[in-house]
């Protein structure tokens, strides 16, 4: 859960008016837009010391905190 809390902290830093724990359709419902995504990407890269390629920026990967965590984990292994 440490990673998840770290993730949530990072997300709140980018956008503090969204309940990242509860929302499951962040991109689909338009709660975060493309520019928010770019900032989240940079924040994740920095916080977890990973490099997520542009091809992974898809609604499925960013619709919920869980999805983002899975993505981070995927690239942490590399």
């Amino acid at each position: 859960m440490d990673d998840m809390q770290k993730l949530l902290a990072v997300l709140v830093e980018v956008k503090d008016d969204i309940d990242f724990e509860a929302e499951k359709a962040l991109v689909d419902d338009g709660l975060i837009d493309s520019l928010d995504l770019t900032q989240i990407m940079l924040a994740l890269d920095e916080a977890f010391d990973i490099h997520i390629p542009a091809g992974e920026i898809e609604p499925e990967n960013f619709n919920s905190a869980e999805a983002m965590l899975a993505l981070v984990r995927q690239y942490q292994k590399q």
Partner: protein
Amino acid sequence: MSILSIEFLALVGAVLILYYALPLKIRWIALLAASGVFAALSGWQGAAHLTAAALVAWGGGLALQKHRSRILLAVCLTAEIGAMAFIKLYPLLTGAMLAIPLGLSYFTFQLAGYLIDVYRGKARAASNPLRVLLFAGYFLQLPQGPISTWKELGDQLTEGHRLEPVNIVSGFQRMLWGFFKKLVIADRLAPVTEALLKEEAALPGWFVLGGVVLYAIRLYADFSGGLDLVRGVSRMLGIGLPENFRRPFFAQSVAEYWRRWHITLGAWFRSYVLYPLVTSKAAVRLSRLVSRPLGKKTARALPSALATLLVFLLIGVWHMMSWNAVVFGGYFGLVMAASLLMEPLWKTLQRTLCLPKGGWMRPLRLIRTWILVLIAQYFAFTNSPSQGFSLLRQTFASWDFHRFTELCTGVMPGLEWLIAGIALVILLVVDLICEKKTDLCDGLARARIWLRWPLLIALIIIIAVFGCYGEGFDSAAFVYTQF
């Protein structure tokens, strides 16, 4: 071949009949044949370029599937986009005209997207070159897009679709709506723009402002009308093309505007230019560099802001090869970048002043967006930045109304203004309904006959009588076809 011509309608009719007559598995041959005919009739040079580009993409795709090589991707992309850039820049460099292939920008972008998707592992390369050829040359998207991804369109094109009445009815309705927007509204408003460009010395400010507003509306009606036409026909074939316009004038911010205007262009630039730029090593390094002096939040926003600025400059240049493009694109880029960088500031302001998110803030946000978008329009239809700035200046000059009737009837007679006005009201009402109830077309397709038929027949008659076509009308070609 213009998509407003009888020939095109005949082609559509022929395709529809052929498509549903063929056995399910080979129905896509009808699409390929129609696309071939359409491309050939629009210029053999264009058809040749299209075929060559598709073959390069097909070969490149298969090769990239085997070896995920960045160099190979770079070579293929350079070939595709380089060819497009060459053709577009040629007149500027040599002064001579080259026949621009129909749909050059659209199919080039689609093929580039295909190659990148294969490289990223998001799409399977097609083994049949005809599939790639159809994807690039699908006749309904050549004139003005939309720009589809392989994931959206690739399979839809080749899988045969069964005849579903709701597709035919819904598609036909959308097609009619497109005709209405284009022929009754957009073409009727064309003289307004021409009046502005005539460089009459002392045009009163209200006339210029009104003219620019009507230009924006005209462009919307023209472009979205053409796309509705094309999407409607495609729907009749059972193929769904992505939406390109979602009532852009209901946007509450410039960012939202660009998510509602020319949606597929924005999406393409986002996926294939913005995100790669922002996730590049250079961006990360930049972010780290400015982290200490400017703060974490700004450090994260800065690469995005810069990338956005670049993207909009490119979008501007995509629209027109002129200095106006720089002003147009640069303006939007700066507005977006500024709003991004100032977001934290704005949030604090909102909190301290206790400004509500909804309520009366919504119309204010709408108006703010309209003003920002309107300023850009001054550089969309004028021939040079100086003309744009001059018109902008004139807007704030004299607001003398004493020549009101003379100027208005000089553009077009009172009856035409009345018709345009009524048509715009109809457009507004329909758009308002669609904003609340996402798809009016499908809803109408399932409605009772006694409601649907009179509406449709009335619409057909309105288009037939009040459309600007035929003798005595300068059928203003689609604005977005020369891209």
